């Protein structure tokens, strides 16, 4: 991506000599804008299509057809819904804290979308490769809880406030097991950069080197991380902040029109994000059979693997959502502190012990890795 961009810039400088005198930051800014726009389009597409996919899958799981009116099999339903919401009145309740109320959806959106910048879509395809990538992901997604808290509080609705409070309690608690599980992955791959983490998961067949196969503890840690990520993303069975049968619609009760869409955009974009981060941390990111970071086709295949794995997670998340009931607040906390946190600790320590015994050998220490 970067090389391609350099070539493009060279071309542009050749064609428009004036550009050659521009300072460096202009190019930097340009690059940011281009990458940001490309990512935004990509994220919107994914979020939109996910919304359609979710409704189709839900339909089939419930013996229904699901949306099928707009386009073939209702494929363009998400565009229609988006347009419809654009034209709807955007109501701000009279006793809302107006600036905060208006700001909240954008915060949620930014928090979710910001994380997309560092995702390693492929060995060459990424917007940025931060050396503290995973920390960045954890940090920026915390904006979401601020947005939710803000929205729930500012809407001046008691149900909304309930949702907001539940959400903050939930996300703060689940950061702990998530962080511990991430630490396991970090320990296994020895880096905080997402690209480096993926590279460290190379192994025979492109599969056996994945972190979940490095030690049995990592396998458990993967599930811990996944559960915690679901909880942080407010998905069923942890969708307490918007528990529609209890809290009407939770923190977004008062939202309508475009702001409502922002919340839901974030929710669906988050599905892919959970999948992508889990994949990167534990399932080898773009590693897979035939994926090779050094040849262009290997990179393409890697991108395919990454996408497929993330999509698999999206499916699993939807599947879970349309199967399970919801926990209660106290049970949610009990589950976090009594089950996930101790298990995550055991996993972290276990993994470290395992590593000191088996070193870097893949497939539960049975297969030696490379030179």
């Amino acid at each position, binding site marked *: 991506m970067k090389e391609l961009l350099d070539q493009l810039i060279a071309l542009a400088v050749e064609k428009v000599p004036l550009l050659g005198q521009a300072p460096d930051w202009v190019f930097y800014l340009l690059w940011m804008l281009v990458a940001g726009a490309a990512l935004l389009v990509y994220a919107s597409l994914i979020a939109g299509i996910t919304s359609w996919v979710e409704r189709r899958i839900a339909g089939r799981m419930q*013996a229904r057809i699901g949306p099928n009116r707009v386009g073939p099999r209702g494929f363009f339903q998400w565009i229609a819904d988006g347009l419809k919401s654009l034209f709807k009145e955007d109501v701000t309740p009279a006793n809302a804290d107006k600036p905060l109320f208006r700001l909240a959806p954008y915060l949620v959106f930014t928090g979710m979308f910001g994380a997309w910048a560092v995702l390693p879509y492929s060995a060459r395809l990424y917007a940025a490769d931060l050396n503290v990538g995973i920390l960045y992901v954890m940090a920026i997604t915390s904006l979401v809880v601020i947005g939710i808290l803000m929205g729930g509080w500012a809407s001046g609705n*008691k*149900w909304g406030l309930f949702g907001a409070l539940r959400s903050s309690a939930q996300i703060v608690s689940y950061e702990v097991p998530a962080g511990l599980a991430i630490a396991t992955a970090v320990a296994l791959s020895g880096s905080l950069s997402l690209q480096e983490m993926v590279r460290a998961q190379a192994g025979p067949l492109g599969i056996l080197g994945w972190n979940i196969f490095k030690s049995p503890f990592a396998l458990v840690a993967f599930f811990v991380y996944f559960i915690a990520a679901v909880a942080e993303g407010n998905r069923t069975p942890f*969708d*307490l902040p918007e528990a529609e049968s209890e809290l009407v619609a939770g923190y977004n009760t008062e939202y309508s029109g475009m702001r409502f869409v922002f919340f839901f955009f974030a929710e669906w974009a988050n599905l892919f994000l959970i999948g992508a981060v889990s994949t990167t941390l534990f399932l080898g990111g773009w590693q897979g059979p035939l994926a090779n970071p050094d040849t262009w086709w290997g990179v393409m295949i890697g991108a395919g693997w990454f996408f497929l794995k993330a999509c698999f997670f999206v499916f699993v998340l939807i599947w879970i959502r349309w199967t*399970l*009931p919801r926990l209660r607040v106290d049970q949610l906390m009990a589950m976090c502190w009594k089950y996930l946190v101790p298990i995550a600790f055991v996993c972290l320590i276990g993994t470290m012990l395992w590593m000191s015994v088996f070193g870097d050998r893949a497939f539960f220490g049975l297969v030696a890795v490379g030179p």
Partner: protein
Amino acid sequence: MSPLQTDIWTLNMGPQHPSTHGVIRFVLKTDGEIIADADPDVGFLHRGLEKIAELVPYPSFMPYTDRLDYLAAINMNWAWALSIERLAGIEVPPRAEHLRVITAELNRIASHLISVGALASDMGAFTPFVHALRDRERINDLFEELCGARLTFNYCRIGGVSLDAPPGWFDRVRGFLDYYEPMIDVFNRLITDNKIFVERLRRVAPVSAEMAIAYGLVGPNLRGSGVKFDLRKDEPYGIYPQLEFEVPVGRGYRDGVLGSCFDRYMVRIEELRQSIRIIRQCLDRIPEGEIQAKVPKVLRPAKGEVYCRTEAPRGEVGFYVISNGEKTPARVKIRTGSWSAMSIIRELSKGWMIADLVAIIGSLDVIAPEVDR
């Protein structure tokens, strides 16, 4: 540091709330998520059925009983027909009695399906609700074939039933039972066994037997507290005495507390099986013959009064009818199960969370038209 100041919140739940099954309103006083008081506010669906009953002739009130509890219309029809039959001393032909039992038990299955499905959907799992609807749809189809309606059947008549079964109908009922019996297990695998679901319900809001009796709970809610009382057994009507079936009672399923929400739920699930058993027996022994007794066109029961109660899916439904020899009753009083279930909610929900209140309402199977009449 001074202690944190907390306040009691007043919260309006309903009448347009996703989990108040119809239009029921609660005024909640909560301390955080803990409920200090839940004041039920009923009457949003009041249609004055008891007054209407005084204005229309006896047979013409039948379609109104459909609306008394639209999820179990046949049971309501039957209760009304039975009271007038007792009042006027009418004998019902045996074939009609069998048809009544078959349809009433089918209707009980349909109603319980909604009830257990709605409880699951209140717990946040929407799919079980739709799966329950899927199976209920087949019952509705059977009813549509039998009497032409899918919800408000208006099937029973004073002295019999309105239509005989179309050819092949009994076989299709049997086919449905064969299909549905294993589906109960599938449903159990989907939601009843689910750990989250069990944990959400099994210790929540237990009703002791004394409390249940004191509040006049009836039907599955009463049996959920371990009281073995079923009008079909204890005050039999129709042909129930000739049929074999068990009365499932709550017994603290899954290490829970006796009379908890989960017990009430499980009683309903078990009753599904018993209903299937009853229908099978009826299908085996249904006689040929008349379906309608001779009833004068303009029915004028002799002066007198009757109270007649039957076992509907939401507990007993009773009609107290006073006749003074006219075409229309002088006074009708209707007693329904949801009403008493509604009255216990206030006492029951104290100290539980909002999420539990939803479970309590769902497990008591309160529906608004029965509460408000």
